[in-house]
């Protein structure tokens, strides 16, 4: 269930009832973060960090805003920063770089959805997760990612194309190319 669906069941005020907010959004935030970083252990750490940051900033939350979108803004920024740090670590310190995920995870989790998500860059992945999983509106996604709604739409459209290609059977592709 996405954040959009959750919104109809009533809003939680982070300032007055943070424990309930955590209970309600813990899994959604974890899954969204994992959808972006594609590493289970890192996603748990980043989810914990998301809620810690949200707790510190809970009095800044604007009444009437969507708590789900607010949490996702913090989570997505943390996830993208994490991937950026990982990329720098891979480039600068290739010998010291240790990925968070285990080989078991790499093999087990390569389902269709993960294969499709893995084909995308982090920015496209964030749009896909926020749109298809968290079910946020284009305007909410544009505010989270600080890009115009048109950019969100074009990223979503190109992400779908990349995912479609990633899931296409290579054997079928070869047949089509041959004919």
């Amino acid at each position, binding site marked *: 269930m996405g954040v959009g669906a959750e919104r109809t069941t009533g809003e939680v005020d982070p300032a007055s009832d943070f*424990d309930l907010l955590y*209970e309600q959004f*813990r899994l959604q935030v974890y899954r969204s973060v994992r959808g972006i970083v594609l590493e289970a252990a890192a996603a748990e750490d980043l989810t914990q960090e998301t809620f810690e940051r949200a707790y510190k900033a809970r009095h800044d939350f604007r009444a009437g805003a969507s708590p789900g979108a607010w949490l996702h803004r913090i989570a997505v920024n943390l996830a993208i920063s994490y991937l950026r740090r990982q990329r720098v670590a891979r480039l600068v310190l290739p010998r010291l770089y240790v990925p968070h995920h285990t080989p078991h995870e790499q093999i087990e989790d390569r389902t269709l959805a993960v294969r499709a998500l893995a084909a995308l860059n982090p920015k496209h992945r964030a749009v896909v997760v926020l749109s298809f*999983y968290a079910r946020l509106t284009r305007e909410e996604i544009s505010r989270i990612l600080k890009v115009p709604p048109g950019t969100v739409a074009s990223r979503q459209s190109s992400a*779908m194309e990349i995912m479609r290609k990633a899931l296409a059977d290579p054997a079928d592709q070869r047949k089509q190319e041959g004919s």
Partner: protein
Amino acid sequence: MQQSPFADERHDQEEEELWTDLISSEMDRWHPRRLPTDFRPEGRIQRFNRRWLLLIMLALLLATLAIALSTGLPRSLASDLIDLARLAQPPPVPM
């Protein structure tokens, strides 16, 4: 034959629904292993730890005092300090 823009829009919508189903059904199966079910902010943990640290230090201090009193250590410690003070004093200058 040219396709109507409405047909394109419908096709896009259908594709979005397919991706939503595929991605959501997969992601809904993801469950964290270590993430606590109750929120424990860092601040709360630190306050809790600090309180425990104070209690432990107090208990250690009391235990040390109890041992010192039962073994008569304060008396010997006091006499040692007096001896040290005497040694530190400059010798009397002969008149």
